[in-house]
């Protein structure tokens, strides 16, 4: 019965965007964007800088209020709610527990001066965990999962390399078992070898945990490795969308063809 219920829930959208738009004065950063994200689905938003993809991510994650349209999210009680209608407590619940947000710059998503263990444990305390031993144990097992030596649990992320910081940020986000994670250029600014390791890690975590994710990236290789579906943005609009391998192997729009043809062969 529990299985049937969860199967039925998987058939229902987790996040719904309808006619989303955002204007800054007379400039339209996003125009008329609609899509549906299902549980366990990874959607990549690709496009060059200035295409509106980061604005869209902020609209979807309720960090920015849309000028037009709605974003709805299926809360844990199964009810689809317009984000604009949520009370402060419900919004806090989403940010602290049910959602993760991985920033391009780990310093934005971490507290750089407190220990790695505290960075991970803090999210647990925010949802009511109060047993120090259990918090530390869970934090430590998450460090292991993201391949950080647990001997470094008491060190502050200030002392970590860029790749380690990014992995710590991921651990901090996933420790509360969110259902949806937003990622903004998660591999940007990292060395290629570090990127590969991070991508492999994220790919495994997303599939093991059945996470839904919206990943903003300008790197089509990241989209290919991580996402099921892709939306290509240009000038604030979605110009092409489909299965990731369809869009990348058989791009239809001129701009998408330009993006795909600009990839250097490995």
């Amino acid at each position, binding site marked *: 019965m529990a299985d049937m219920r969860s199967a039925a829930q998987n058939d229902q959208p987790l996040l719904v965007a309808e006619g989303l738009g955002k204007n800054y004065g007379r400039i339209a950063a996003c125009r008329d964007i609609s899509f549906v994200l299902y549980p366990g689905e990874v959607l990549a938003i690709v496009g060059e800088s200035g295409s509106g993809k980061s604005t869209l991510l902020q609209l979807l994650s309720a960090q920015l209020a849309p000028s037009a349209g709605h974003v709805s999210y299926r809360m844990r009680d199964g009810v689809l709610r317009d984000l604009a209608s949520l009370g402060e407590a419900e919004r806090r619940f989403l940010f602290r527990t049910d959602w993760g947000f991985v920033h391009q710059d780990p310093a934005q998503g971490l507290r750089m001066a407190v220990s790695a263990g505290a960075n991970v444990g803090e999210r647990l305390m925010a949802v009511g965990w109060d047993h120090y031993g259990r918090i530390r144990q869970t934090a430590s097992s998450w460090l292991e999962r993201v391949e950080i030596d647990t001997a470094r649990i008491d060190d502050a992320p200030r002392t970590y390399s860029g790749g380690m910081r990014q992995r710590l940020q991921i651990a901090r986000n996933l420790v509360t078992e969110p259902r949806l994670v937003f990622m903004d250029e998660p591999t940007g600014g990292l060395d290629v070898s570090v990127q590969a390791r991070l991508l492999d890690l994220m790919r495994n975590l997303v599939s093991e945990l059945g996470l839904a994710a919206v990943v903003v990236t300008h790197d089509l290789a990241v989209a290919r490795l991580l996402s099921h579906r892709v939306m290509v943005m240009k000038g604030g609009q979605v110009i092409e969308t489909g299965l990731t391998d*369809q869009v990348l192997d058989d791009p239809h729009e001129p701009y998408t063809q330009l993006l795909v043809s600009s990839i250097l062969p490995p």
Partner: protein
Amino acid sequence: MPAMIEITNAEKSFTMHLQGGIRLPVVRGVSFDVNAGECVVLSGPSGAGKSSILKMIFGNYRCDGGRIGIRHAGVVIDLAKAEPREVLSVRRATIGYVSQFLRAVPRVATIDVVAEPLIATGTSRDEARGKAGQLLHRLNIPERLWALPPSTFSGGEQQRVNIARGFISDHPILLLDEPTASLDAANREVVVGLVGEKKRAGVAMVAIVHDDVVRRLIADRVVDVTSFAAVA
């Protein structure tokens, strides 16, 4: 035997916007069926559209018209019009695809590359790895290589890893794009044996094979792709 694949009047062209909008017709009027337990080999010269047809059946290339009927979980789904989620679900449970080249994630061990499709459909990691090991063993990939990522392997070794990954699942449909192209005689024979086992298990297969010997051994029927040539 029910038809597992029913293709009717499928067509595909490419419009090259970066080359002044040239339209390259690929295939038109593609129509054939594939039954359970049978292997259909596509024939025709290079550039006739054989790989494109396989990609259309896999939902990798989007059709301009026509129908790609796929029997999936007891019903027939038109993959030419299916939603992305349906295509993914069809690929998870129904259609396997052995491409010409291995596209592996950096850093992932060979044994896990092969086991992954089984794990994705709910088999336990240990069981999936066990089965992956058996296939790698049959395809003569020595055990000392299993823990290494395949990116450093030779072309023939990579292709065998790819074949193991493609054959590990119990998908009722299997698409094979030149599975024996860079293999030696002994390994070609292993692949012929694997195809035979899939047939006996009732799997419907569509294959592109240039090697005449292999084609004779696995083909139940040959479909000549030149009859689907799309003239500009």
